[in-house]
C-alpha cells in the first residue's frame, strides 16, 4: 500500500491537534504559550465571519489570511492535509459501505449555508462557529469525550481504592502519568454534551451515503476554501474521468461527482495520482480562469443571483428571527471576564469551547437559551458549579478571536462579570441568627468586596449572640462568584451573582 504525503500530513496534524487540545489547560504557569486556538486563528471561515460581523480586523487572525492565500495558490489542501475532522472521518469510516448520495445535499445547499452564515454575520449575528468543523470537533471533545475519558479513568482509580485502599499507590505511576499529562484535572459534566456529540456522530453517520459527505456537501469552511481554491494555479489533468479506466471515481473522495473534475471539490489528497495505473494524473502549473469550469457544463453557476439573493434574505430573516430574550435570564447571563458588551461578544465568539476547556475552576459552560437560541454554545459562568479564579487569565489567552480579551492579571481582576447580591431570607446570620461568613472569607479582593457588621442579637432560643452579618461593596465586587460557589447552604446559595450593566 502506498502512503500518500497527504495522509502523513493528516496524521501529523491530527496528533498536533490532540496534543494542543490536551495542553490547553493550566500546567502550573500563568501563561499558555501555544494552544489549540492556533487551528482557529488559521481558519478562513472564522476570519470571514469576523470581518463581516465586526467590520474590522484583529491581528490574532493573520494566520487565517495565510491559509486563504495558500488556498488560492494550492487549492483546497486544508481539507485533505490538515483538517482533523476530515482525518477522523477518513480513519473511522475507511471500511464503511456507502449507499447512494443523498440527492437533497447535491444541490446548492452548501452555498446557501455558507452565504446565509456570512449574511447573518453581516447583520451582527455570527453563528458560523456552530457549523465550523473544528469547533464541532472541539465541542464534542471538550463537552463529552474528554470528560468521559477522565471520568472513566478516575472511576477505575477510585474503584481500585475501594478494593486495595492506599495499596493502590503501588501501581500509581501509570495513573499518575495519565493524570499529570493526559486526563482533565477534574471531571466536569457539561450541558449540551449530548448535542455536541450528536452533531459529531451525525457527520460520521453521513458517511454511509457518500465519502466525505459532510466535507463536500455541507461544511461551510470547506465550501469557502473550495471557492478560494478555484483560483488555484494548479489544475488537475486530465480534467475528466478517463474512458478506459474510471477508477478515479472510486479513489476520489470529493471532486468527481460527475465525469468532470470539480476544482472546488478537490482536496489535493493525491490519491488519484498515486493510484493511477497509467501515471496519467498530473497537477500542472496553470493560471486559468476561475469560476469558468461550471459555466460550460450547463450546471448552475455557483454564485448565481438566486443563491446570493436567497442567502441574503434568509440571512436577514434568521439574524433577527431569534433575537427574543427573556429578561430574567439576562440577569444570570454571566459572560467570561473582560467581555463588556453582549452584542460584541455575539459578533466575535466562535463557540469553539476552548475557554470552557481551559477554565481552571470549570466555571464556564455552553449556554443553550439564556441569550436566545443564537447564543447556543457560547460560554456562560454558572457560579454555583465553578467560579472565576481571581489570578487566572487563561480564557482570554486561548480565545482565538479576542471575543474574550486577553487581559493582564491586574486588568482581569478589575473586569466585572457581575455583582454579588445577598438574599437575607436565606443567609444564615440574617435568617437563622447563626454565624457563617464563608463568603467573606473566600472573597479574593484584598480589600474585601464582602464585609460584615458585628451586631449583638438574641437568637431564637433567647440566647445572646454576637452576629457577623455580611454585606457587599458593589464598587469592589467583580462578580467572580466564589461566594456563590462556596456558600455552605445546601442547594440554593444565599449570595448570588447577577449581571450588571457595564459602563
Amino acid at each position: 500500500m502506498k502512503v500518500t504525503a497527504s495522509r502523513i500530513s493528516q496524521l501529523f496534524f491530527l496528533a498536533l491537534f490532540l496534543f494542543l487540545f490536551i495542553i490547553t489547560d493550566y500546567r502550573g504557569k500563568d501563561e499558555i504559550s501555544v494552544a489549540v486556538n492556533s487551528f482557529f486563528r488559521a481558519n478562513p471561515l472564522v476570519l470571514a465571519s469576523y470581518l463581516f460581523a465586526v467590520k474590522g480586523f484583529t491581528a490574532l487572525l493573520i494566520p487565517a489570511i495565510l491559509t486563504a492565500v495558500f488556498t488560492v495558490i494550492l487549492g483546497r489542501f486544508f481539507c485533505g492535509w490538515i483538517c482533523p475532522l476530515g482525518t477522523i472521518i477518513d480513519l473511522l469510516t475507511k471500511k464503511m459501505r456507502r449507499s447512494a448520495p443523498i440527492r437533497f445535499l447535491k444541490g446548492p445547499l452548501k452555498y446557501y449555508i455558507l452565504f446565509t452564515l456570512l449574511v447573518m454575520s453581516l447583520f451582527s449575528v455570527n453563528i458560523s462557529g456552530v457549523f465550523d468543523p473544528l469547533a464541532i470537533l472541539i465541542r464534542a471533545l471538550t463537552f463529552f469525550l474528554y470528560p468521559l475519558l477522565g471520568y472513566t479513568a478516575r472511576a477505575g482509580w477510585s474503584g481500585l481504592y475501594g478494593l486495595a485502599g492506599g495499596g493502590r499507590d503501588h501501581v500509581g505511576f501509570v495513573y499518575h502519568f495519565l493524570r499529570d499529562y493526559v486526563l482533565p484535572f477534574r471531571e466536569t459534566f457539561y450541558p449540551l454534551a449530548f448535542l455536541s456529540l450528536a452533531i459529531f456522530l451525525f457527520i460520521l453517520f453521513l458517511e454511509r451515503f457518500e465519502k466525505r459527505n459532510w466535507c463536500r456537501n455541507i461544511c461551510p469552511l470547506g465550501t469557502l476554501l473550495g471557492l478560494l481554491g478555484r483560483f488555484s494555479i494548479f489544475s488537475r489533468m486530465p480534467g475528466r474521468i478517463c474512458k478506459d479506466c474510471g477508477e478515479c471515481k472510486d479513489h476520489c473522495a470529493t471532486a468527481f461527482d460527475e465525469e468532470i473534475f470539480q476544482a472546488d471539490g478537490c482536496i489535493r489528497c493525491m490519491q488519484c495520482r498515486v493510484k493511477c495505473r497509467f501515471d496519467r494524473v498530473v497537477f500542472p502549473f496553470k493560471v486559468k480562469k476561475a469560476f469558468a469550469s461550471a459555466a460550460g457544463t450547463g450546471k448552475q453557476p455557483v454564485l448565481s443571483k438566486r443563491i446570493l439573493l436567497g442567502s441574503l434574505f434568509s440571512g436577514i430573516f434568521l439574524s433577527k428571527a431569534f433575537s427574543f430574550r427573556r429578561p430574567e435570564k439576562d440577569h444570570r447571563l454571566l459572560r467570561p471576564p473582560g467581555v463588556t458588551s453582549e452584542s460584541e461578544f455575539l459578533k466575535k465568539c466562535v463557540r469553539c469551547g476552548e475557554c470552557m476547556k481551559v477554565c481552571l475552576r470549570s466555571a464556564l459552560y455552553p449556554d443553550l437559551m439564556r441569550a436566545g437560541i443564537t447564543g447556543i454554545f457560547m460560554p456562560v459562568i454558572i457560579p454555583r458549579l465553578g467560579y472565576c479564579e481571581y489570578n487566572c487569565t487563561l480564557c482570554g489567552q486561548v480565545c482565538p478571536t479576542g471575543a474574550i480579551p486577553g487581559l493582564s492579571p491586574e486588568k482581569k481582576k478589575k473586569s466585572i462579570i457581575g455583582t454579588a447580591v445577598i438574599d437575607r431570607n436565606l443567609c444564615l446570620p440574617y435568617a437563622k441568627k447563626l454565624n457563617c461568613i464563608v463568603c467573606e472569607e473566600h472573597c479574593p479582593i484584598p480589600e474585601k468586596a464582602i464585609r460584615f457588621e458585628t451586631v449583638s442579637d438574641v437568637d431564637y432560643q433567647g440566647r445572646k449572640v454576637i452576629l457577623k452579618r455580611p454585606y457587599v461593596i458593589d464598587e469592589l465586587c467583580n462578580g467572580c462568584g466564589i461566594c456563590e460557589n462556596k456558600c455552605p447552604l445546601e442547594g440554593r446559595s444565599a449570595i448570588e451573582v447577577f449581571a450588571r450593566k457595564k459602563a
Partner: protein
Amino acid sequence: MKRRDFLKATLSTLLASQLPSRLMAQSGQPVVAVAEGTDHAAVTRRAVAALGGMKVVVKPGNTVVVKPNIGWDRKPEYAANTNPVVIKAVIEECLAAGAKKVKIFDNTCADPRRCYENSGIPAILKGMKNVEVKHVENERFKKTTLNGRFLKDWPLYDEALAADVFINVPIAKHHSLTGLTLGLKNLMGIMGENRGHIHRSIEDALADVNSRVKSHLVIIDATRVLTAHGPQGGSLKDVKVLNKVIASRDIVAADAYATTLFGMNPRDLSTTVTAHKRGLGEMDLNKIKVIKA
C-alpha cells in the same frame, strides 16, 4: 559537696538531658518553644530541638503527615500559606529521625493547582526522596464517627487518619470569623465535603475534629503573619514579618502562645477556649513553660 546537693545535681542533670519535653509535655507542664531569626530553616530546627528534637515524635519507620496550610492562591510573601522553608525544614527533621515516608497535602479553598503552585511548597520539595506532595482525592475522604458536640460524623482524609505521626504546621494569621487561624483550625484541611457548614458552630466543630485527629506536634509558622483581611489576604500592607516559629506538643498551648503575637489574649479566641474546656490542652499562659530557643 553534701550528699543532698550531689543527688540534686545528679537528678537535675538527668532531667535536663533526658526527660525535659518527653515527660513534661505529656504528664507535666506543657512546653512551648519559640525561636526567632531570619534563617527560617534554622529557626524551625531550633524550635523543634528545644522540645527534645524530632526523634521524640517520629520513630524510625513511621509514616508522617505534615499538614501545612496551602489554602489560597497566594505567593509565600503574602502570608496566606505556610512558609515553604519551614515546611522543608520540618520534613528534613522527620526524615533525619527515620521517617519512612512523609506526606504533604491540604484540601485547598481556592483552585488546588494554583494554590500548590503559588505556595512554593511543591517546588521547594522537588526531588526529595520519600516525600509525597499530593492533591487530595475525593474518594479518600472517609466518613468518620466523631460523636462530638456539633459534628456526629464527617468525612476526614484517610491519610491523616492512617498516619503514624501527624504534624500540624499552620501559618498564624488573621481570620474574620474566629479572630485568628492557628493549629486547631488548620485541621479543616483534612475535612472533606461542604466544610463551610461548620462555620455556624466552629468552636465545637474544631474541637470535635481535633479530638479525633490529634496533632502529635504543632509547629506554627509566624515567620510572617497576616494581621488583617485574613485568611486570604492579598495585600502586603497586611503582612507583618515576625521571624518566629513556635513549636509545641500541646496544640492549645501553641495556639494560646501564638495569639499573644497579635497582641491578643488567648481568651479572645473562642476556638482556643472551647478546645481548652474540652480537655485538648492548656491555654493559661502562666501554666505553660515557654522556652526561647
